């Protein structure tokens, strides 16, 4: 549950940052952006990997369904 919620809530958080900062959060390089803005773009992209690495969110939910709830295969 912790893995699932941490991954999914980080993705939501990063999407909210993009929404708040707008285009300022979608810069890739160059002097038009501050270091923090460029870092934000990378943090947003990186967050997409959270729900894939170390067992996908789908796998976490499968484990909860099977082990915690005892639902049949």
């Amino acid at each position, binding site marked *: 549950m912790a893995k699932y919620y941490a991954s999914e809530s980080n993705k939501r958080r990063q999407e909210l940052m993009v929404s708040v900062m707008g285009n300022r959060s979608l810069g890739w390089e160059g002097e038009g952006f501050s270091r923090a803005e460029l870092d934000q773009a990378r943090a947003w992209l990186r967050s997409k990997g959270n729900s894939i690495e170390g067992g*996908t969110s789908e796998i976490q939910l499968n484990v909860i369904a099977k082990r915690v709830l005892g639902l049949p295969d």
Partner: protein
Amino acid sequence: MPLVPTEEQEMLRKTAREFVTENTPVKHLRALRDSKDAVGYSPEIWKQMGELGWTGITLPEEYGGSGLGYAELGIILEECGRTLTPEPLLASVVLAAEVIALGGSEDQKRELLPRVCSAEQTLALAFQESGRFHPYRVATAATSTDGGYRISGSKQFVLNGHMADHLIVVARTSGAEFDRDGLSLFLVDPAAEGIEITRTSMIDSRNSARVVLSGVEVSAASLLGAIGEGAAILDPVLDRATAAVCAEMLGSASEAFERTVEYLKIREQFGSRIGTFQALKHRAALMFCELELSRSIVADVLSAIDEQREELPSLVCTAKARLSDTAALVSCEAIQMHGGIGMTDEEEIGFFLKRARTAELFLGDARYHRDRFAALQGF
């Protein structure tokens, strides 16, 4: 609204798909990005688009255009969206040339539109001043001088800004930031004294520039439309451009979705193809439904422009809100369903996620357009 495409429209789609598949597949954008190309698109391909009539498709025939509708433009942009084509159709032909076509004097139209249609020159519209879009958030000021105006201010995210032969700058001649009244539009030579143009590198690898104007002098003849009444031109142009970007987003989301469904059919995990898992099947089916609704609203909003329907602004809000939501859903699900390989730069699906987010924010995201819809309806 006709829901069945005409024979001519079917032909146009076929031609457009063949052209972009051949000339601007995703690897075209990748190559431009990797080589840090100074232009950001291929001038040679742009010329060919001109020969096909794309660079003047909606512009009047008397100025060298094809005089076709937004339904036809939408077909081309949808196909361009499928391959993430970076050539500046939206920036030059839809945003900037439409300002001249709708608000320019006869002299201005005769001077500029034929060169846009023939792909000899490109234009850019400089309006945005902050990260999030608002059409009247303009602090750039223009003051009267002897025989002209002096403009000072700073513009961001100007599509095609560093390549354009002419800039159209939205500046304030009266009122306060966020006022609809008091905006004026000026034709500005990008080589004029006092202009500094810096290309900005965005995650979608498209052309975008920062334009700083420090006391730039322009003649009285460079005013487009009436002084202080720029919003009367800007509003319909931005509505049209928003509808146009919805068509492009539909193409990109459809392509990302189709690639993902293909992947679900071939990728094996735990001894079965992942497309056999019901959790993924349902989500793929839901995306298909969202895309079908998106397709309908795009067809409707484009035909509303061609039919000059009064409800256009509300319809534009509906379309952009829905397409932004669909693009967000499909681009995120595409990455998740591709799994680890989707996070790599070698796999093209990531390009679709990056373009989806900049397109969502361009001319207002879902939140902006829901709010505007409520305001238009008097809620």
